């Protein structure tokens, strides 16, 4: 027994010494519910698996650009209806089966099938037909030209899966990426191992472990005690200054695709009056919300569009912080004494903390809010599907989702025929210059209609061991791409 203990101790210390060059432990706040990125909305699934285990025809780069993935190159027909993808050859799935055009046909048809449970089924709605021309060529025919088809194919919901391994994908995912799935200790961690047969550059890390720590104080302790090497999306911004001051760590502060908005129920009285919506927008001091709720991390926005996008225009000037003018607008709309409404807050801290500040700011112009804190499932039921809310705070994390304003049944119930027509035109336009113009027009329309109170672009703050490099700073999609991560000595 003594010898056993001794050898265990030696193995343990040996691990502690050498593990640090080939292995990384990354903390995440949320655990994936299962491991199929193509049948759930949970961002945690993509965080663990996107690009690491699963790859799509195209893939997002760290800056949000759309690059070649499993498709080496592609041709678009002149009418914009046919995309011919040339696939990489010599790619094999982690179970040893080879990747080819039939896997692409299977994946895309599965995603758009009638009984599909793909959370982003709309991405595939424009596809008319998918056809395997030969082993490494796939032809996708669209119903109408679609300007962002290649962008759509880079989403985690569009990764390529194989028919042979689909039955068990939720517990043992088989992809083509630089890491293969190792083990899932439910409630604790998921480990990945380097794929030695990867078609591209092999990963520098031999293995990686994602550890799930939901409690902010526990995240702090785990980082400080050296139990984990990085925490992606660190949940307690109040500790970041302490990490920044500590030479053992680096803090990465980047952008996400999350437009954080004070959503307004546009069909509900008195918010059906644009003057009231404008008054609400002008009563809000964005910077004080960013400082108070997010400890300074976040970029003010004036419309539903990400500031790091090349087509972004700064429209924050449409609703400057001016309580006096806001009060006058309310009086003009017939509410000189203000009114009372509901403010429903989902769990994230941007909503709970931001909600208190916004309630105080609205009170200054006479709007009383009844705050209720909801769980996500309740929020979906009451606010999202039941339209039973006056105001709510949500960060819309999907990339390039301004199109939701063209859906009159969407929970803020904005119904503007001009905007809907514009988005329709945009969806079939593939000329970059024209697209850019249209996107700017779209931003302007919703900003000038004061559809929602536009607060800030959600920041992504990660704490990383100072000796690690290669983590993405920004989050163009919810991924923790480890393919370029390595230790420096």
């Amino acid at each position, binding site marked *: 027994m003594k010898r056993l203990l001794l050898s265990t101790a030696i193995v343990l210390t040996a691990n502690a010494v050498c593990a640090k060059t080939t292995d990384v432990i990354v903390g995440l706040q949320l655990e994936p519910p299962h491991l199929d990125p193509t049948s759930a909305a949970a961002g945690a699934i993509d965080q663990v698996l996107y690009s690491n285990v699963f790859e799509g025809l195209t893939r997002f780069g760290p800056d949000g650009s759309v690059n070649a993935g499993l498709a080496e190159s592609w041709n678009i027909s002149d009418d914009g209806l046919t995309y011919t993808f040339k696939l990489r050859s010599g790619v094999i799935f982690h179970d040893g089966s080879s990747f080819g055009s039939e896997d692409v046909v299977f994946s895309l048809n599965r995603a758009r099938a009638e009984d599909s449970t793909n*959370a982003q089924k709309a991405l595939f709605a424009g596809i008319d037909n998918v056809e395997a021309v030969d082993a490494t060529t796939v032809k996708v025919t669209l119903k109408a030209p679609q300007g962002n088809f290649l962008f759509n194919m880079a989403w985690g919901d569009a990764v390529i899966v194989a028919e042979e391994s689909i039955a068990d994908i939720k517990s043992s995912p088989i992809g083509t990426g630089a890491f293969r799935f190792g083990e899932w200790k439910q409630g604790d961690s998921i480990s990945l191992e380097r794929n030695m047969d990867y078609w591209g550059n092999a990963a520098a890390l031999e293995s990686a472990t994602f*550890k799930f720590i939901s409690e902010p104080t526990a995240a702090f*302790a785990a980082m400080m005690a050296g139990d984990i090497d990085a925490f992606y999306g660190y949940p307690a911004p109040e500790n970041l200054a302490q990490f920044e001051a500590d030479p053992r760590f680096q803090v990465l502060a980047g952008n996400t695709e999350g437009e954080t908005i004070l959503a307004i129920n546009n069909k509900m009285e008195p918010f059906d009056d644009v003057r009231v919506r404008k008054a609400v927008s002008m009563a809000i001091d964005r910077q004080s919300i960013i400082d108070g709720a997010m400890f300074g991390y976040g970029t003010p926005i004036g419309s539903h569009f990400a500031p790091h996008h090349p087509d972004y225009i700064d429209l924050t000037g449409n609703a400057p912080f001016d309580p006096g003018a806001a009060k006058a607008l309310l009086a003009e709309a017939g509410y000189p004494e203000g009114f009372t409404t509901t403010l429903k807050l989902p769990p994230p801290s941007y909503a709970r903390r931001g909600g208190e500040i916004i309630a105080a700011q609205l009170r200054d112009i006479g709007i009383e809010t009844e705050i209720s804190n909801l769980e*996500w499932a309740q929020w*979906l039921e*009451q606010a999202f599907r039941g339209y039973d809310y006056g105001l709510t705070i949500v960060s819309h994390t999907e990339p390039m989702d301004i199109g939701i304003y063209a859906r009159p049944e969407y929970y803020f119930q904005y119904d503007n025929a001009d905007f809907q027509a514009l988005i329709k035109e945009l969806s079939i336009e593939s000329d970059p210059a024209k697209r850019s113009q249209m996107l700017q027009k779209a931003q302007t329309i919703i900003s000038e209609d004061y559809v929602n109170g536009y607060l800030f672009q959600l920041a992504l703050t990660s704490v990383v061991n100072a000796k690690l490099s290669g983590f993405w700073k920004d989050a163009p999609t919810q991924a923790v791409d480890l393919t370029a991560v390595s230790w420096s000595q």
Partner: protein
Amino acid sequence: MLPYLIKRLGSLIVSLFVASLVIFACIEIVPGDPASFMLGVNAQPDTVNALREELGLNTSHTQRYVSWISGLLKGDLGTSYTYRSPVSDIVADRLQVSVPLALYALTLTILIAFPVGVLAAAWRGSAVDLFVMGATQLGIAVPNFWFAILMVIVFAINLGWFSAGGFPGWDAGILAVIKALTLPAVALALPQASILARVMRSSLLDTLSEDYIRSARAKGLSRRQVMWRHALRNAMIPVLTIIGLQFSFLLAGAIIIENVFFLPGLGRLVFQAITQRDLIVVESVVMLLVFAVVLVNFLVDLAYAWVDPRLRERS
């Protein structure tokens, strides 16, 4: 004894049945649809419906209750909506953490509470007693998660003796498991030990004022002999009751401590399942816990009979 056992068993089955109805009803009326939760804000209605169909959520309440109960009777706890694996497997995984943690904490509780309670009762009114009463008051008042965080800062961050949390799994060996569970067990044990020590003390004091104790003393036994031979054993009944309740509590009530130490225990599973609307997991786990509590109470009843011969004879 046999008719008594049959009667108890009958009431046990009835209470389990009633519990199953209450649990099912409560959880089914909780707002929030598991399918729309999983598919998020961009999902189309037909996709949500396809998932509801796949999960069997489009059937009636009665149908679902019947299939759940008939599964339970066969030992099948159902399949988790989110994890898509059998609930029994998931629960078994979590019990590997929760049972040892509860036992560890309970052992510490007893090891602390017994001597402290006896000491305080034996020296009633002395400085020792006053100190014990003050310290246990503090132990009950201080929130255990705060104490847990304090221990993490001292022992994990500053001293580096323990890791800040997590569970290495049984593959890592018994030592690693003990090391991982020590801080959480201490954090869980302190308030429980404070409660138990106070119960122990007051129960002993009650017993010590009984006539038979005076008789024993008059017979010529020393204080110590009276304490060990007569008082302690008779004071055990309320103490055992509390220990039974504490074990049930420690098994499932450690959610906050599990979160502070990010341990994959049963409490965190239920908590996660509730937020994700994984109703089948919540229902089955709660049912299992009800069963465990009923079972523990039954064992406590048996223990009463062991310490008190009168109960044995009466039945």
